[in-house]
């Protein structure tokens, strides 16, 4: 990213032609470039899945609409969710992990740079495979169809008899392949954090982002793999005549549900824990105070990681499990709210008494805190099995998880992009455009997802392509769709900000936010080797020690 033009008294060495640059990007093993590739890839798919969401909302804007056929509608919600989870959120979050972890721990690269590149390309090509289904899949309805079985792909809908053609196989294979890439990155992150920290950086002095990525990577190892196993079983059923989920041979489709949700629930914690990491890095800097309760934050995250493995069947309350099972999963789901609540208190404790700076990253962080809290509360409501019996598969659940995923994950991603954009590109973003983005997105988000709880409580089921008028859902759906359009405009403002700032933004120095972790000690963007000499640290905030040698943190830790 740094200029390739060197002027040497009279001579000028030309910039490399674009083909050279393209080849360097395609063959890179540098964690920073791979991080940027992941983020750019994820943002592109975020926009594509956003278009799919807008199509869904246009169809649902009024009853008996016929903007898209029911078959296309099914493909839209399947592709929207599959894309958002696997090819938008995960790549962006892994991109940030890739970019930041080595820099924050004082290393020159990840532990296995080539594995890093391999994992990226596996995930990237998996995503392209999924979208190839639009032209390559063949289903009951003629040539070219994307998967339409929902992102959970429940058995026996996915059996050969009920999903002929290849659309389900595109879902299975693309997610399977990118799952292997994800596990590779998980291994890489753990090896990097455990084996490549700079001298003096004990685990107790690591930035919280590194700690939380360590927990997330551990969860990846044991949560993604059950999905891979289940998908192999599905392929055996579909192509080798197996009977894993075949009720006619004595098999149990509910087994797919168990296996899927053993993956699916930890997966959403894999998505949110890096977002917690962003909060833990950004909020202290814009409160001008160190994070409140570092050890408890670590302990709470580890607890969340463990407990999240034991809550999965709260997605299955309506399946007819015994009351013992329902009670157990109600209990564990409520318990997981405790460490999460502790973290929210600690972020608030960080802000309390600090000198708050309401820059754009901080605005998104405050939105996150408020929204994730509400999402957690509706989650506790749903955790109650009896309440879940009423509201399962209704728009209340859709509202709840979009509150966590958009109000939580997407807001945190925006905060992280605004915060680390200067480091990655050497340019500051426009505060004005950033604030327009924030307020428009906030208004659109709340218009859509606050209101969405009510059709759910009034009985509107999920995944329906249209509905009867006069049930009290009409005005809600209309306003929800308006909110979606407002969010779309906000995202366009965001993209414009990123593009314009790249060319016209103010130059950023090493440390535009006056922060304290090691990535801010190198130039923006960092040199390929990260650090001229590997640093030695003596506290959790090495740059604070550097800037305030008369009052270093190392005296108090």
């Amino acid at each position, binding site marked *: 990213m740094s200029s390739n033009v060197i002027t040497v008294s009279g001579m000028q060495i030309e910039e490399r032609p674009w083909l050279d640059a393209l080849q360097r990007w395609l063959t890179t093993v540098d964690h920073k470039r791979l991080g940027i590739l992941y983020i750019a890839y994820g943002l592109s798919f975020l926009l594509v899945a956003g278009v799919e969401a807008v199509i869904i909302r246009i169809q649902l804007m009024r009853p008996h609409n016929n903007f898209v056929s029911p078959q296309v509608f099914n493909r839209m919600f399947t592709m929207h969710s599959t894309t958002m989870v696997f090819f938008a959120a995960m790549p962006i979050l892994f991109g940030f992990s890739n970019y930041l972890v080595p820099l924050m721990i004082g290393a020159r690269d990840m532990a296995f740079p080539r594995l890093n590149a391999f994992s990226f390309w596996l995930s990237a090509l998996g995503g392209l495979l999924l979208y190839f289904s639009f032209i390559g899949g063949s289903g009951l309805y003629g040539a070219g169809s994307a998967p339409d079985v929902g992102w959970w792909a429940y058995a026996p809908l996915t059996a050969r008899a009920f999903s002929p053609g290849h659309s389900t196989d595109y879902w299975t294979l693309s997610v399977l392949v990118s799952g292997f890439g994800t596990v590779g990155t998980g291994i890489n992150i753990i090896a990097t954090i455990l084996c490549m920290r700079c001298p003096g950086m004990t685990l107790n002095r690591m930035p919280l982002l590194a700690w939380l990525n360590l927990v997330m990577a551990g969860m990846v190892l044991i949560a993604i793999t059950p999905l891979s196993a289940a998908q192999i079983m599905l392929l055996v059923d579909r192509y080798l005549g197996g009977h894993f989920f075949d009720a006619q041979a*004595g098999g149990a489709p509910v087994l797919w549900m168990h296996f899927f949700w053993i993956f699916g629930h930890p997966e959403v914690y894999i998505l949110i824990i890096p977002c917690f990491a962003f909060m833990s890095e950004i909020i202290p800097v814009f409160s001008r105070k160190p994070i409140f309760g570092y050890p408890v934050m670590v302990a709470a995250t580890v607890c969340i990681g463990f407990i999240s493995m034991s809550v999965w069947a709260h997605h299955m309350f309506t399946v007819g499990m015994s009351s013992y099972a329902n009670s157990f999963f109600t209990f564990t789901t409520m318990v997981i709210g405790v460490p999460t609540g502790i973290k929210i208190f600690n972020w608030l404790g960080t802000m309390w008494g600090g000198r708050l700076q309401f820059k754009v990253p901080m605005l998104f962080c405050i939105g996150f805190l408020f929204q994730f809290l509400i999402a957690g509360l509706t989650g506790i409501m749903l955790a109650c099995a009896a309440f879940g019996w009423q509201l399962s598969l209704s728009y209340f659940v859709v509202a709840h998880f979009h509150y966590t995923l958009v109000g939580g994950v997407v807001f945190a991603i925006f905060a992280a992009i605004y915060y680390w954009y200067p480091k990655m590109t050497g340019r500051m973003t426009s505060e004005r455009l950033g604030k327009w983005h924030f307020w428009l997105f906030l208004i659109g988000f709340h218009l859509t997802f606050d209101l969405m709880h009510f059709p759910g409580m009034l009985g509107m089921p999920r995944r329906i392509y249209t509905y009867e008028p006069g049930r009290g859902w009409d005005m809600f759906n209309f306003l929800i769709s308006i909110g979606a359009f407002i969010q779309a405009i906000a995202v366009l403002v965001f993209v414009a900000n990123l593009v314009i700032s790249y060319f016209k933004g103010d130059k950023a120095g090493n440390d535009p936010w006056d922060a304290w972790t090691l990535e801010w000690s190198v130039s923006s963007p960092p040199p390929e080797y990260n650090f001229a000499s590997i640093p030695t640290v003596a506290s959790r905030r090495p740059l604070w020690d550097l800037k305030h040698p008369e009052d270093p943190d190392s005296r108090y830790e």
Partner: protein
Amino acid sequence: MSAIANPFPQASASWRLPDRGKIAMSCLILAESAIFTIFVVAYLFYVGKSLSGPTPRDVLETPIFYTICLLSSSLTIHLAAKLLVRDKVGSFLFLWLLTFALGGLFLYGTGKEWHKLIYVDGLTISTNLFGTTYYSLVGLHAFHVTVGLFMILIVAICALAGRVGVEQAHRVEVLSMYWHFVDVVWVVVFTVVYVVGR
């Protein structure tokens, strides 16, 4: 960055972190264990639930000899790795090739068993629940054995070309961790399929 004073001059000297190859292989083993756990759970869930067709008791013969082969190969690979650390390349190569032979023998035994099951007993992956879960679980394990043998073969070829010495001892140790994992999985699969499941 060199402006940060080093407050702990001893820290750099005694700063030792775990080995990344071993940590990475441990992580891979953890992830693969999760995959195998799911297949074992499916197997146990479906024990006795087949509606028709051959049952385990009818057709399974306990593969004691081939199991001993595989478990011995864990011993030989362990000894081979230790010999390489002491730069005894000749003895290492002998034990390494013995490991390969024992592993190959195990795969041959699996193939023989499957041949009998398919052609004599009429049990395939699509026959019934037992067939599906048995071939998936044992097949997944055999696949991992095959991959391990392939890696062992690559090392063997390099060793025969004289390119493996004490400098590669660490990599050989990491590979042997994988092989031990494959063995431990067989112990679990053996217990579940041939002991508990019958």
